[in-house]
């Protein structure tokens, strides 16, 4: 580790590796630090992602593709089934990844682009000169170190501290987070569809999912809206769900985690600092998908970092370009998703059932998310009046 870099990226998830790759390719001196000793482990993800989206960032490799899916099914509380093409969950299905390997492959890509990666190194605070952020304090394999940089990028995930240190309050209110548990279940029969189960007894304010992982395995998980959770609820509900749906399944891995579901936050930049990925709360509030948004925002951030350093201006004003780009793209999508989420979490099981039944006949496997919303709207003008703005 040197004592000065152009850019320090905190956190080697998809967001951090994407920023590091982009900035290093532009010729900058980049340090990417990760507090864990193994990148990507433990996993905190259901591992579903849109194929085309992933291909924009990395060449597909069978080592990190666990399965490919054709589409998804949604089950209303009464069992009414809707089957839809893979676009329904936006960017969330297509591949089911092996994130332990995928995240490391992304970090390898950063390294081969010229970035330096250091693991078991945790940022513990920011160095400031006047208002300007000029580096980080860190604990690297037990040693306290200070490292300087022109720009610090917080890509430190859901538990992000970097933003808070810089005065950007990224604390999530319980209503703005999905708290999740997932088991990797083996010895079961699953086909090439992702399945989603809705219902207030199954997953209050969230949903349960089954994502095939190939060879008779699936990621079976549950997300509960934070404001409707109580102590240990996700694991309790998941155990019940698995017992009911996969009585013969064997649990061979356990995943815990949380996804931001707040929609766009007010601010993701400061003088000499930017936030990317889950730390910038860029995940989709409806589906909980965040891999692709993290990767895409990483490229935007890396590109803006490079041009700002070239112009020798890393002020908040100069970094506005990043803010503008991600709000225009990711921001718009997640704002719409938030409107839908805020409605869905208010529905009773009966309303879910009515909605699902109302479009059952029209729903075929070629419908995408937009067609579904349209069909729902046509069939339920009263219930879904709030969605009219999305359809325009």
């Amino acid at each position, binding site marked *: 580790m040197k004592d000065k870099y152009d850019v320090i990226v905190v956190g080697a998830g998809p967001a951090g590796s994407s920023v590091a790759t982009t900035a290093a390719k532009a010729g900058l001196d980049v340090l990417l630090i990760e507090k864990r000793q193994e990148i990507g482990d433990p996993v905190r993800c259901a591992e579903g992602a849109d194929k085309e989206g992933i291909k924009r960032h990395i060449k597909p490799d069978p080592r990190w593709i666990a399965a490919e899916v054709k589409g998804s099914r949604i089950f209303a509380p009464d069992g009414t089934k809707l089957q839809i093409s893979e676009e329904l969950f936006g960017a969330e299905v297509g591949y089911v990844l092996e994130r332990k390997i995928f995240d490391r492959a992304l970090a390898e890509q950063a390294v081969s682009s010229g970035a330096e990666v250091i693991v078991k190194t945790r940022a513990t605070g920011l160095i400031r000169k006047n208002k300007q952020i000029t580096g980080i304090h860190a604990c690297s394999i037990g040693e306290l170190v200070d490292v300087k940089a022109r720009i610090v990028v917080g890509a430190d995930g*859901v*538990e992000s501290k970097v933003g808070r240190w810089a005065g950007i309050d990224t604390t999530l*209110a319980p209503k703005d*987070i999905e708290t999740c548990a997932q088991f990797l279940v083996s010895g079961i029969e699953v086909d090439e569809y992702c399945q989603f189960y809705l219902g207030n007894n199954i997953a209050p304010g969230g949903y349960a999912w089954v994502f095939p992982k190939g060879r008779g395995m699936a990621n079976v998980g549950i997300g509960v809206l934070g404001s409707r*959770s*109580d102590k*240990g609820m996700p*694991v309790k509900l998941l155990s019940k769900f698995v017992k009911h749906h996969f009585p013969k399944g064997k649990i061979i891995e356990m995943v*815990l985690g949380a996804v931001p579901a707040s929609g766009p936050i007010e601010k993701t930049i400061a003088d000499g600092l930017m936030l990317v990925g889950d730390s910038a709360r860029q995940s989709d509030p409806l589906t909980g998908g965040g891999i692709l948004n993290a990767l895409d925002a990483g490229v935007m951030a890396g590109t803006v970092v490079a041009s700002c350093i070239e112009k020798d201006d890393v002020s908040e004003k100069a970094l506005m370009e990043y803010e503008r780009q991600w709000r225009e793209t990711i921001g718009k999508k997640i704002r719409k998703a938030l409107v839908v989420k805020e409605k869905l979490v208010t529905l009773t099981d009966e309303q879910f059932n009515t909605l699902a039944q109302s479009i059952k006949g029209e729903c075929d496997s070629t419908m995408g998310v937009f067609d579904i919303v349209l069909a729902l709207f046509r069939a339920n003008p009263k219930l879904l009046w709030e969605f009219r703005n999305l359809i325009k």
Partner: protein
Amino acid sequence: MTVTVNRYKCGYCGACVSVCPRAALELVETWIEINNACNDCNTCVNICPIGAIESVKE
């Protein structure tokens, strides 16, 4: 400090850290540290997916 984390139960997922209004929690590799900014609001207790956080009555 009025909450404790059962580190034998904790799955070091960081969910609790993201909701703590006092920034009193920190995920250090595989365990949670609590500093004395905690004001016993119990938000983290209900968010923890596995119920590893106990609120301690003093």
